[in-house]
């Protein structure tokens, strides 16, 4: 009888045998990418003190990169027809114009566990209200940046070439301290609105917004609540597909796009990398500074009580967990009380989205995990990544003192 009760669900096993479900992994990856983004934005704030200048810079790059899929007008039309209308099965009864870009924005939110709803979806106005967002720790520069990506969606969906017809306002942004994130697109011709610059996307809409009562807000996106996201016309995305999308594209939009602009803000590459590593190292040390953070991790991964606090495998198992969550394949090569070696293909680690490799992931995680070694295990321990320029690299958790803590 007991065997009949054993169901199956997608999960992976931690190094200590505890099962982590697909839902937990998906929640974790969204938050992990957001945390990485938050660290990166600290680097940006060091190099560029002006909120306006850094916001404009990341908006520019994110919009340009989103539009880059279009190319020539013919390619743009092909993109819109195949990648937008066909992919989302928007029926012929709908007018094909900018407002349908709202569908792309809505799906992107839900695939990344930004929980909310489309309040209004008409040819003149689209209103999207969000109750929660994994990126709520990053800051309003990112919120603005998403409007520039949204603008690209609207531009690509436009029936007037590549210039959209809407005024787009993120009129409430959690990054600004407001509880909600809310985006409203209103047709400029209908509402008599001017075309906007990058810093003009946080105004109030013309028509009043709808405010969902607190008791009817949601805490998780559709993929977690219902195992799928279904858009207005009935097309579905499974949790599995959304997870894979996040594991690739989450890094692209929230890390790679701003990274391109932030590198330009630094005086040179060496100075960028020096500050970049310092910020991620500090983040790593702070991850486990509190004793209860260590206890929580041990419980989450199922670390047995007989494993001593000063055992590097605790960090090793955390790194493996993070690789599993991020869907990065690896092989465990050494697993003793003195060292953990994790071998993986360099490309699997850096190129989550094949077309856009992100070498800085190695620098960032090496600095962060090395910092974490000091507090999660002890200052006797370090984390290094060897062979980053080779086909395969090895993440090593080893006993090594780090006298200068850099």
């Amino acid at each position: 009888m007991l065997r009949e009760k054993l169901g199956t669900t997608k999960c992976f096993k931690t190094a200590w045998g505890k099962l982590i479900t697909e839902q937990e992994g998906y929640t974790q990856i969204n938050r992990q990418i957001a945390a990485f983004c938050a660290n990166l934005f600290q680097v940006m704030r060091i190099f560029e003190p002006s909120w306006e200048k850094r916001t404009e810079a990341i908006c520019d790059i994110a919009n340009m990169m989103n539009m880059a899929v279009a190319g020539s007008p013919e390619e743009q039309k092909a993109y819109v027809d195949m990648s937008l209308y066909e992919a989302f099965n928007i029926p012929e009864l709908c007018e094909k114009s900018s407002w349908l870009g709202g569908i792309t924005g809505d799906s992107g939110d839900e695939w990344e566990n930004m929980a909310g709803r489309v309040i209004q979806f008409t040819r003149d106005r689209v209103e999207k209200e969000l109750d929660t967002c994994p990126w709520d720790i990053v800051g309003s520069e990112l919120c603005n940046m998403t409007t520039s990506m949204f603008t690209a969606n609207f531009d690509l969906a436009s029936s007037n070439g590549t210039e959209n017809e809407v005024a787009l306002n993120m009129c409430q942004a959690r990054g600004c301290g407001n509880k909600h994130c809310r985006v409203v697109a209103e047709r400029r011709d209908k509402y008599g609105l001017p075309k906007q610059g990058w810093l003009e996307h946080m105004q109030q809409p013309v028509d009043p917004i709808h405010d969902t009562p607190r008791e009817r807000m949601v805490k998780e996106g559709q993929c977690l609540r219902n195992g799928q996201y279904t858009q207005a016309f009935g097309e579905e995305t499974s949790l599995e597909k959304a997870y894979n999308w996040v594991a690739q594209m989450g890094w692209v939009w929230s890390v790679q796009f701003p990274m391109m602009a932030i590198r330009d803000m630094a005086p040179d590459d060496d100075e960028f990398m020096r500050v970049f590593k310092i910020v991620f190292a500090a983040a790593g040390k702070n991850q486990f500074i509190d004793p209860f953070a260590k206890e929580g991790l041990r419980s989450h991964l199922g670390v047995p009580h007989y494993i001593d606090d000063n055992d590097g495998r605790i960090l090793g198992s955390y790194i493996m967990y993070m690789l599993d969550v991020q869907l990065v394949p690896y092989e465990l090569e050494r697993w003793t009380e003195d060292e953990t070696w994790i071998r993986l293909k360099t490309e699997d680690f850096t190129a989550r989205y094949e077309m856009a490799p992100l070498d800085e992931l190695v620098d960032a995680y090496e600095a962060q995990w090395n910092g974490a070694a000091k507090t999660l295990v002890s200052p006797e321990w370090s984390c290094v990544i060897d062979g980053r320029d080779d086909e395969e690299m090895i993440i090593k958790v080893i006993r090594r003192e780090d006298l200068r803590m850099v």
Partner: protein
Amino acid sequence: MLFKEDKTARLDAETIRRSVGWYRWTHDLVEITGKDALEVLEKIYVSRIAKVGTGRTKYTVMLNEDGEIIDDVIVMHMKDDIYWVSDLYGPRLIPWIEAHSEGLDVQAKLITYDWDMYAVQGPKSPEAMEKLLDKPLGELKRFSVAENTVSGIPVWVHRSGFTGEEGYEVYCAADKTQDIKALIAKAVEAAGGREIYTLEVYVRSIPMEKGFALKQDYKHLNPFECGLGWAVDLEKDFIGKERTLEIKDAPRYQMVGLEFERESTEDISIWERVYLYGVEVGRCAQAIYGYTVDKNIGFATVRAGIPEGTKVTVGPNGSPATVTAKKFC
């Protein structure tokens, strides 16, 4: 998402229910021709298409081998051996036809981009159509299609609709659409009506009130589980028949209506979970505000045997609802 307070949406709904409204309603259109066209249609649809005479049309559904609805369409018998299928999934229908017409003389072509369609719906639609058309409608029966002209422009007029009201669908060549659109607007206005603006009103709210569902609402259901058993002709063969016979005797699910108690349903997305005493018993296909019934209503697929009047909750915040018939007015 529609709200009680939305004045434009309410006016749109009232126009369709009390007067006449028009809106662009172009669906995917697949033309099926060839001497074996009827044979293929009989195979892929559950209804007896042979009974659909020239100039007549029929609502029917397509099943997979598991007996689950994978499409719902209107089959229109335009001329001898020429059928049009009005569908929202035309590009997916063609490969299905091709897969089931080996060795047969059948051609299926997507003609969506050749034809635009406008809906004229509401109790005053006959008056608007009389003003619009060059030739009188005469005794055009429901689910009939006939040729006519509008200011000399050839059109097909289909007496049908998705509103539960008296209504017509006007098909015109795509290159004449702007002319036809203007003429329809004028005729409808002369009959006291107006253009309908809110997509969710004419795609969702108005049809749902009358029990009309979309293909997506029928997910995993057999016709005998969602009130479409009347469309099935068990005397003929069709894809999914074997499983249909089993389900007819022992349905697993049922499609029902839901009436919500709360003023709005912001926490209910498409396919939100439905609970009975905290136990999941189904999914709510969609909830929307119905301006005629002045309530939030929805369609749900729940376990077979749950009677009307049962109190359930929907979604993450336990939104209370009552199980009803799927026709609300």
